[in-house]
C-alpha cells in the first residue's frame, strides 16, 4: 500500500502522543475500536473551563499507519476549538486531508468516533457532580 506524504509524516512524527489524567474533571476520554479488529484509538481532550476551548489533546492508537495518522491529525485539529466546533469535525475532512484510499476510510470514521466519545465523556462529567469518572469504552 502506498501512503500519502501526510500519512507518512504523521506516522513518522505523530503529534500529541500521550495520556491526560482521565480522572481530571476537565478531561474527556474516548476509547473506540477493539483489539480483535486491529484498531483501538484512545483520544483525550482537556477543556479550559473558563473559555470552553480545548486547550490540549492527546492520543494513543493501536492500528495501521492510517489509523495512527487519523488520530494524530484529529488531536491537531481539536486544539483551540470549542467543544461544539470539535463536534462538527467530519471523517470526510480527515479522508481529504490525508488522501486516505477507500479501504482506509474506516480509520477516519474511528477518529471521528473517538472525538465524539471524548466529548461525550467530558460532557457527562460536567453534568454529573460526583466525579466518579472512568474512561469510556463505549
Amino acid at each position: 500500500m502506498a501512503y500519502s506524504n501526510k500519512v507518512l509524516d504523521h506516522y513518522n512524527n505523530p503529534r500529541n502522543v500521550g495520556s491526560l489524567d482521565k480522572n481530571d474533571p476537565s478531561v474527556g476520554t474516548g476509547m473506540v475500536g477493539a483489539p480483535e479488529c486491529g484498531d483501538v484509538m484512545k483520544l483525550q481532550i482537556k477543556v479550559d473551563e473558563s473559555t470552553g476551548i480545548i486547550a490540549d489533546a492527546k492520543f494513543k492508537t493501536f492500528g495501521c499507519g492510517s489509523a495512527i495518522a487519523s488520530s494524530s491529525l484529529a488531536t491537531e485539529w481539536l486544539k483551540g476549538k470549542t467543544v461544539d466546533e470539535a463536534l462538527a469535525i467530519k471523517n470526510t475532512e480527515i479522508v481529504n486531508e490525508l488522501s486516505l484510499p477507500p479501504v482506509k476510510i474506516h480509520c477516519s470514521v474511528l477518529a471521528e468516533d473517538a472525538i465524539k466519545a471524548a466529548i461525550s465523556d467530558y460532557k457527562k462529567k460536567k453534568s454529573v457532580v460526583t466525579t466518579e469518572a472512568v474512561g469510556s469504552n463505549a
Partner: protein
Amino acid sequence: MKTPIYLDNHATTRVDPRVLEAMLPYFGEHFGNAASRNHQFGWEAEAAVDKGRKQIADLIGATAKEIIFTSGATESNNLAIKGVAEMYANKGNHIITQATEHKAVLDTCKKLEKHGIRVTYLPVKQDGIIDLDQLREAITDKTILVSIMYANNEIGVIQPIAEIGKICKEKGILFHTDAVQACGKVPVNVITDNIDLLSLSGHKIYGPKGVGALYVRRKSPRVQITAQIDGGGHERGMRSGTLNVPGIVGLGEACQICRTEMSEESKRLAALRDSLKDKLFANLDELYINGSMEHRLPNNLNVSFAYVEGESLLMGINEVAVSSGSACTSATLEPSYVLKALGVGDEVAHSSIRFGLGRFNTQEHIDYVADRLTEVVRKLRELSPLYEMVKEGIDISKIQWAVD
C-alpha cells in the same frame, strides 16, 4: 549493506544465478519444442526436459517417469485433487484436508463440494499440527484422498507426513501433499513417507516462476488422475500443453542445487533464524511465536508483537521485506486464517510478522532487521493504548470492546 532486505522467501525466492545460467541457452539456440520428435531442435529440448525430470525426481526420491510438469503448485494441487476426485468417483466421494492449507487446496476442495464431493477440514492444534487420531476418525469407506500440506507457508510448521502416509497406506487411501515450502528445505522422500501425489514449485526454491511439478506414484499403488487440461496428450495424457523447456531446465537445476546443498543451507538458515529470534526476545517483552518451534522449517519465524498492529510495524521497517497476518495487509481485509486456526485470537494475527529467510540472507541482514524491529516496536508501543493499559495492570481481555 544494500536495502531493502528481502526476508519474504515463503512468497517467492530470487532465481539462483546458476539456475539462470542453465536456463539461458533454452531461450536462445536450443529453442525447440520437446514434442518435436523428428529433428535436432526437438531432441535437444527433449533431452533437457528428461534431465530436469530426473533432477526433480532425485530431490524427492521418485523416478523421472513419475514427474508431471505444470505451471506451478496451484495447478499441481488442482490437478492432484480434482484429478483424483474425478478418476476415483466410483470408489468414493470423500476428501480429508485441514484448515491451514494453502488456498490452492482449500478453494479446490470448496469447488469440489459444489459437485457432490464431501470434504472434511481437520482443525489444527495450537502448535499448528493436526491430531492424527482425528485424521483416523475422519476416514470413512468413502474416503478416496487425504491432502495435507508438508510445511505451512505462514508459520512453517511441518506436519507428521510419514505418520499420515502410513495411516493412508494402511487404509488404502491416496495421500497428496502440497510440499511447496518443504521441498529443497528439508529432506522429502515419497517412498519413506508413503506419499502418492506431491506438489512442488520452481520459484520457492530459487528457480523460475511459472513452472512446477506434480509427482504421481506409478507403483504400489499405481495412481491415476483425470487430466484437467486437455489437448495434445503431453505428460502421458495427464497434462497437455507444450512444455516450458527453459522453466523445466531451471526447476531441475534448482532441485539439483537444493539436493546437494540442503543439509549445509538448512543448518545455516536455522542458525540465522534462531539468532533473529534470540535478539528479538532479548530486546522486547510480550512476543509470541506462532506455531510449533520444534516442527518447523529452518528458514521460518512467525512472531506476534503484542499490542502493535502488523501493518503499522511493516510501515516502520519499509526497508525490510516481510509480511504480516494483519487484516490490513491482506486483500480480503481479514486477518490470517492460518493464525486464526491456531485458536489464539484475532489480535494475535493482527500483530504477527512472518520472516522467511533464504539463500541470500546474511548475519548482517539479521542484525539489522532485529535492531530496526526493536526500535519500531518500542516506538509503536509508546503509541499503543493497549500496551499502556497492560503496563497499568489492566486485563484487556476483560474489557467490553464495542465491536461493530
